[in-house]
């Protein structure tokens, strides 16, 4: 048992984190071209709406929910002191979970049944969607079956994750958790691990910088003013647009 626990809660997280970082950097440098969200809206748009929109907004909410609970567990506990506020938090989170789940089912169904979308589907896409479906399903199950997750996450899982990141893994508490929750944790690390090998890389290049760049963009292939000045030597530099 101890072996399994060690493997899944100590080795796997580190392997996942290391492969994740090496993988995304390598992929970005070697095959930058492959960083794409690979949208299939062009081939089918109506069904996409009922899948993509609830799925993405849902998962963003869930992701940040987990992140906040991990980063500032104290605040979550403080908030949850009043039962009403706890209920509101849990209910909202569950709603978003359900939204994500339904969205993903719609996406999956669309991907399998639409002839055009089928053509741009590969096995990795299917594999990924199955894993995500399983993960969200587990999450919903936990939310229903093991109540008040927002509170025990702050007590049990935040310290565990922190111990991973501080290179001092404490797995005693996680080892005692029910199997469903353990599976949820393991799948989370597996998803992290496969990000570099799937289309999920697109979430790493979400174009937030759009918000602060000027609208228009002009690129010169060489420094115009320098080139005309015979006094300066022309230094070699890589063109900026490739």
């Amino acid at each position, binding site marked *: 048992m101890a072996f399994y626990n060690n493997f899944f809660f100590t080795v796997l997280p580190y392997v996942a984190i290391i492969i994740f970082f090496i993988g995304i950097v390598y992929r970005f440098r070697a095959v930058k071209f*492959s960083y*794409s969200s690979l949208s299939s*809206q062009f081939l089918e748009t109506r069904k996409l709406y009922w899948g993509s929109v609830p799925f993405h907004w849902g998962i963003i909410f869930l992701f940040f929910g987990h992140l906040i609970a991990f980063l500032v567990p104290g605040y979550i506990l403080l908030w949850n002191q009043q039962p009403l506020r706890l209920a509101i938090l849990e209910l909202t989170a569950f709603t978003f979970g359900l939204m994500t789940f339904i969205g993903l089912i719609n996406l999956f169904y669309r991907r399998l049944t639409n002839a*055009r979308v089928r053509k*741009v589907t590969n096995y990795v896409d299917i594999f990924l969607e199955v894993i995500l479906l399983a993960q969200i399903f587990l999450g919903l199950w936990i939310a229903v079956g093991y109540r008040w997750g927002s509170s025990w996450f702050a007590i049990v899982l935040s310290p565990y994750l922190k111990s991973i990141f501080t290179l001092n893994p404490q797995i005693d508490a996680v080892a005692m958790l029910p199997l469903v929750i353990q599976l949820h944790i393991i799948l989370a690390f597996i998803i992290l691990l496969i990000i570099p090998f799937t289309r999920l890389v697109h979430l790493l*290049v979400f*174009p937030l910088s759009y918000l602060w760049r000027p609208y228009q963009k002009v690129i010169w292939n060489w420094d115009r003013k320098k080139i005309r000045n015979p006094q300066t030597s022309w230094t070699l530099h890589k063109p900026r647009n*490739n």
Partner: protein
Amino acid sequence: MNVRSQIAMVFHLDKCIGCHTCSIACKNIWTDRKGAEYMWWNNVETKPGTGYPTKWEDQKIYKGGWEKKKKGEITLRSSGKYKGLLNIFHNPHMPVMDDYYEPWTYKYLDLIESPQGDDQPTARPVSLVTGKPLDIKSGPNWDDDLSGTPKYARKDPNFEDLSPAEQEAMFQLEKMAMFYLPRICNHCLNPACVAACPSGAIYKRGEDGVVLINQNVCRAWRMCVTACPYKKSYYNWSTGKSEKCILCYPRLEAGFAPACMHSCVGRIRYLGVLLYDADKIKEAVSSAEDELIEKQLDLILDPFDENVIKEAKANGIADSTIFAAQTSPIYKFVKVWHLGLPLHAEYRTVPMLFYVPPLLPVMASLSITDNSKQAEKLDPIAKFWNKNHLYNTNTESIWGTIEQARFPLKYLASLFGAGNEQKIKNVLKKQLAVRIHRRNITVGDIDKNTAEKILLETGLTPKIADEIYYLTSLAKFDDRFNIPPAHREQALEMLEDTGDLKGSTGFGFKAEPKRSL
């Protein structure tokens, strides 16, 4: 003043014969790949018609281009920083494949391999996307030559301002007229595609103003497709990257004209340098609707002006480029003769492709005559025009044909005049005056005084008229395409291997355009 140079274009619509050679030249070089089959970076439309993609001009559907807000500033109609990022998971105004067409091929092998039978074997069309048999419902020039008029030509978005009676008049069989509108990316000065791209993958090249998409940075957020009001940015459904006309920049850098222009059968296309003032773009694009064209043309600077030359040099524009600007056919058409007008200036992207509006469909007006006498004389089997209409060849009332054009000027104004009919009228009158002047010289049935009076009325002189005539009808290759040297010796990007990259992701880096995982 911030002087920049731009490769600009003029298409002379009176000369376009609608042969689609340009489209084929482009297709063969750039878009004969998986995922790009449906793309026509160059396409030729029949007007009136709904075009490609269907109804692209209807911004109520596609929400492309810029719009002026009450406060006076302009914003992208459907994308931009906030709307764009909010709609990133599903872009509600994006045209989909069915708005263009589903590309197909034919099962040619069936013609040879079918077993013997009573019927002739046929090559069935199959989709290039799914590989399944396909009922062809539309194609890139489905409404060519007004075919399917009730469904296409009559739904032309430019009819919005025309009264039902005016529209009806256009479609009476005897009076029907049309012209061709070849379109490529306009390599705009205020490109909506660049502004809408969340990743910043699209950029305008400083040296020549060509607008390009960096395939390495594009992440398939698809905002450019919606934002370009001309629908000239296309989404490659296979690679998950957007692509657009690159103005054949590898050819330009080597001193060749772009393939569509080089191959143009009607020799309608001109290409050359314009100098413009980048500091004034903002003011020009946010001016009032009726001033738009004027303000946009004001951006273009006089390349002979000493101050302009000085500023251009200070900005690093090569002497050869300045010289090209001085000898540019575009400068003549657009700024000196005022014959070229931008297509849909009201989208506020400041297109750098100008059109000389067509005179012929306007001129060819008909009058009613009694043909019965003539008909009696003819052999009954002979085919003859038994309708009582006659083409007007009357030279008495010179402007009459323009005033009572059978092709409503309002329609042309909606395309090229941002709604202003006077703009169109001026250009047409000038074209007509040049013709009359030439008729005086070659045929001689119009006397010199009349011809000169008419020229004067439009602000032309016989000398200018002859120049216009020359550049319109006799111009040689080098007159039509005035391409400045690219100075490859100074541009690192341009030194990179450009020769053997066909079928790969493009220039600058080599990789197979394979869909990733």
